[in-house]
């Protein structure tokens, strides 16, 4: 198991060192780790999401969080937000236990309910700025400045005065990304941000997320159903399945042997000549 691996293949290759997961995180532990887990177990009700997992995500990297439906991608993100308690082991975000409402962490939940309200993009961001505090929903000059900065960071200034119920999926995503940047976070947790796009737009959206995060200097953990749009965008893959996790480059993790090991059952990985990847469990 190699410690440092160059970015994944493809035209968008980034040459950031990536720490692989596994049994020996100590050897490569960095003080700048955005997320570090040691013998971490988390779960949701009766379900075990992670069982004694150890890995560490270096600051500044773009991690694709993959795994089958129901493997617990969202639960893992919620643990990082301090919403799902740690059952045993250690989970650290920038060296400290996750706290609910931490301004270091920006979150973009999966959008299940489209907003059908006639408010502007600026109104939407304003509602989430200090939205957890009691009082009147007034925005002071300092708040307005932060909203402008976040809109600028996500390249979404043009959406500030547009009505949110008339935005396209891509525009709404840009706005939601701006919103996640409101607290100037160092870690961005994005839950299935690509789910509502067609395959062509997915790729554009993924590249946009990477560019925005890079400009903002934020580490990204981005869950996705499909690996293809993130190929060449992400630095590493965090694959969760059956309570186990594996962190590493695409070439290390998305292989027949690594995934079969993770699932405890035979899994085949096919690569198309143009770089696409297809994972199948019915090969055996």
């Amino acid at each position, binding site marked *: 198991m190699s410690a440092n691996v160059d970015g994944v293949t493809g035209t968008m290759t980034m040459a950031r060192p990536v720490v692989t997961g596994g049994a020996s995180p100590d050897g490569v532990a960095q003080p700048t780790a955005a997320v570090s887990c040691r013998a971490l177990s988390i779960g949701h009700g009766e379900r075990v999401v992670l069982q004694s997992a150890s890995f560490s995500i270096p600051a500044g990297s773009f991690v694709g969080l993959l795994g089958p439906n129901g493997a617990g991608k969202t639960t893992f993100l919620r643990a990082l937000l301090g*919403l799902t308690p740690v059952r045993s082991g250690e989970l650290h975000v920038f060296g400290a236990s996750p706290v609910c409402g931490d301004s270091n962490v920006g979150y973009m*939940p999966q959008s299940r309910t489209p907003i059908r*309200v006639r408010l502007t993009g600026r109104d939407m961001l304003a509602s989430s700025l*200090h939205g957890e505090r*009691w*009082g009147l929903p007034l925005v002071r000059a300092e708040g307005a400045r932060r909203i402008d900065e976040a809109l600028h960071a996500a390249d979404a200034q043009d959406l500030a005065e547009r009505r949110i119920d008339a935005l396209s999926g891509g525009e709404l995503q840009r706005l939601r990304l701006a919103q996640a940047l409101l607290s100037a976070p160092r870690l961005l947790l994005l839950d299935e941000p690509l789910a509502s796009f067609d395959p062509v737009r997915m790729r554009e959206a993924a590249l946009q997320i990477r560019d925005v995060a890079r400009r903002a200097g934020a580490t990204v953990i981005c869950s996705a159903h499909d690996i293809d749009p993130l190929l060449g965008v992400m630095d590493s893959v965090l694959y969760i399945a059956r309570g186990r996790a594996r962190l590493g480059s695409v070439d290390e993790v998305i292989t027949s042997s690594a995934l079969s090991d993770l699932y405890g059952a035979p899994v085949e990985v096919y690569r198309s000549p143009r770089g696409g990847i297809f994972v199948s469990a019915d090969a055996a």
Partner: protein
Amino acid sequence: MLEYDFMRMAFAASGCVAVLAGPVGWFLALRGQSFAGHALSHIGFAGAVGAALLGWPPLAGLLVVAVASGAGMGALGGRATGRDVAIGMILSLAMGCGALFLHLLTHSAMTATALLFGNVLGVTHGTLASLAVITAFSLAMLAFLSRPLLFASLQPELAEARGVRMTLLSVLFLMLVGVATAGCAQVTGVLLVFTLMVGPGATILRVGLSPALALPAAAVLALAEAWGGLALSWWSNAPASFWIAVLSVVCFLVSGIPAQSLRFRREGDAGSC
């Protein structure tokens, strides 16, 4: 018309109720809970008649039952599907109880009409004082809740992740709706609470004002509709409840026309560039 004491009382009482009902109604429409607000008034009806049966003031009965039911509804809350059916069943049961209590009341006909369709011209000084206190307290409460309530209504998943206590918020808000319902029922009657509470709020929501403007605007519109209804009732000799209902619906329809055409133009612009 203002030289008569009962008219001055009616204007004061409906003013108190309207400034609370407008903003509460805006949140109800924003959260898609207007049916819950409608249900609370029907459930409150049973409380009002029950109180009258026991010789207590109907307003007290209406208030207590509506606020308690609001709390219960908020606590059950969640996003359970079939919520409308559950609310509908409970409200029909409550209306049924109301019918039974009315049957047991000897002077039922007048009480029933006053409760169902409002009796704003019969507001006493005592009732007005209670309405004023209730409104002041509720507005303060709503001001306190409004920021997290707005956040939780627009983006529930994110609000929860940021530590907003969703159930507590939902309970407190629906209790406020219960209070506003009891107030509205004094003016419009339980059957027409929707007109003064949801009507102005939904109209303002349709116009698409920013929240900090929309909340006072909803209060002003509700006030205009309530006072307009009273004035029209004075001149036309038709019940105030009727005119308030008419104004409410007209405003809602009118608000839809320009906003919709504006939106279409906007979408056209976006398409061309």
